[in-house]
């Protein structure tokens, strides 16, 4: 048996939403823990920053959480509930039971990947993925990088990689100029967003940014050599070291779904106080809908105040949240995926990278469940986190299915889970 720890509030996820939630709950004198599978706090957007904060905003939050008696459980992955108000988690050292009175899920988002010929070649990496690797020690100095896909993350990733010395060949954004323009008009209502966008534009001066442009194939033998891009009727080849490619973000709703929280249209449903449809389980940040850093911080604070019963403090943030959610809705419209992307994968293009299942075999079936059972698509270690959102877009299937453990774990961990579930 592993150890057991009890807290008033357990926060799952140590990104901005989790940090904000933990701060507000701990400032109300509650005993708070944050559990995260990464080596340190920060989530993806602030990855690697505790040692050297990249912005005054992240520094402020790191200092705030560091001053509080918040228990940080890093390098530890929650994988299943055991009994009421207890989660099992696994680290390198073994398993532990984390018991709580209130739970705040701040599990963030992942990139959406879409299959196209060659997308499984080494050095075809997510846009946020390559940024994360660069923050984890990968040296991109002098590397030629094509950044492609969709969403504001492309600009942030490109700027970060350029700061690290990479040569950004171009940024290919699949959204049309017309949609981007409509989105930009919305930016004007959000001064802080506009400021960020202009700063990125400055950092990327001289880098071609092509709207209505997307990758149709990655080429190379044992690793990537070049990318074929398309824009309108034109197709051309760009030699590069890395293709940093992601198609916006997908909320991480698996743990919420496993706990019985209602998930609608890929988002965890919450009330005004960020409480899910399960009592005492709250959710903040990207799992409730992709909204970005500011919205994550606000939702995190609302959840933190709410679990402490400080409802007026929570209410004080409702108006700010409303404005940011409006901005998020504009982002969804601006970066909606164009239908041409459905034609990128060929019948032999792999959709499931864990089990190497090509699109042609998935298409033989009529539902996600049938395809899973008969082709093993989505049945590998990532449990469909990569291929399910792609299949949802490509084939229009309902791909929601979740079961414990939410991540593959060691056999010892499963045995410990069974032991703690059995009546003693």
């Amino acid at each position: 048996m592993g150890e057991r720890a009890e807290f008033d509030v357990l926060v799952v996820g140590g990104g901005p939403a989790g940090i904000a939630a933990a701060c507000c709950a701990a400032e109300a004198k509650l005993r708070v823990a944050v559990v995260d599978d990464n080596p340190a706090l920060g989530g993806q957007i602030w990855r690697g920053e505790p040692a050297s904060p990249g912005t005054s905003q992240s520094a402020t939050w790191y200092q705030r959480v560091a001053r509080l008696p918040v228990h940080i459980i890093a390098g530890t992955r929650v994988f299943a509930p055991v009994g009421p108000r207890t989660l099992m988690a696994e680290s390198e050292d073994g398993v532990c039971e984390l018991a709580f009175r209130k739970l705040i899920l701040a599990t963030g988002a992942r990139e959406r990947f879409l299959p196209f010929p060659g997308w499984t070649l080494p050095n075809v990496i997510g846009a946020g993925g390559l940024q994360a690797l660069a923050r984890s020690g990968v040296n991109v100095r002098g590397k030629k990088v094509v950044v492609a896909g969709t969403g504001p993350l492309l600009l942030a990733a490109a700027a970060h990689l350029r700061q690290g010395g990479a040569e950004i060949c171009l940024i290919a954004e699949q959204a049309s100029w017309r949609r981007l323009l409509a989105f930009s008009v919305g930016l004007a209502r959000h001064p802080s967003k506009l400021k960020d966008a202009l700063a990125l534009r400055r950092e990327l001066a001289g880098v071609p940014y092509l709207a209505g442009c997307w990758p149709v194939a990655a080429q190379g033998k044992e690793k990537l050599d070049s990318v074929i891009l398309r824009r309108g009727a034109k197709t051309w080849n760009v030699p590069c070291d890395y293709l940093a490619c992601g198609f916006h973000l997908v909320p991480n709703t698996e743990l919420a779904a496993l706990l019985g929280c209602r998930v609608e249209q890929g988002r965890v449903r919450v009330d005004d106080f960020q409480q899910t449809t399960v009592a005492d389980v709250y959710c903040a940040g990207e799992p409730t809908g992709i909204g970005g850093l500011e919205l994550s911080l606000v939702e995190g604070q609302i959840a933190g105040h709410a679990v402490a019963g400080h409802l007026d403090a929570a209410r004080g943030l409702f108006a700010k949240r409303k404005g940011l959610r409006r901005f998020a809705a504009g982002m969804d419209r601006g970066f909606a995926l164009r239908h041409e992307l459905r034609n990128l994968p060929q019948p032999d293009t792999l959709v499931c990278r864990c089990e190497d299942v090509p699109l042609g075999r998935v298409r033989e079936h009529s539902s996600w469940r049938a395809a899973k059972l008969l082709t093993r698509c989505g049945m590998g270690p990532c449990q469909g986190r990569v291929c399910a959102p792609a299949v949802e877009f490509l084939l229009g299937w309902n791909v929601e299915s979740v079961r414990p453990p939410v991540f593959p774990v060691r056999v010892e961990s499963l045995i410990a889970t069974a032991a703690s579930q059995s009546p003693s």
Partner: protein
Amino acid sequence: MPDLVQMTINGVAVRIPRGSTVAAAVLLAGSSALRRSVSGELRGPLCGMGVCFECRVAIDGRRHVRSCQLLCREGMEVTIGG
């Protein structure tokens, strides 16, 4: 001088800046691929954040460890290509 960690990748000694993840160490050591897929394709990291499992390697004999989420440690033995 940067603070370096000494470790091995497939038996070859490498020195990697402290604070790097194992995935970064493998890429710094010159390999783009970390594993072979079930049909034998070479694969490198995709998501960089612990979701896709493409970066899994064996560390000190323990298999299926996500190298993008683990920091390099002195004396670590990493096996890639499995």
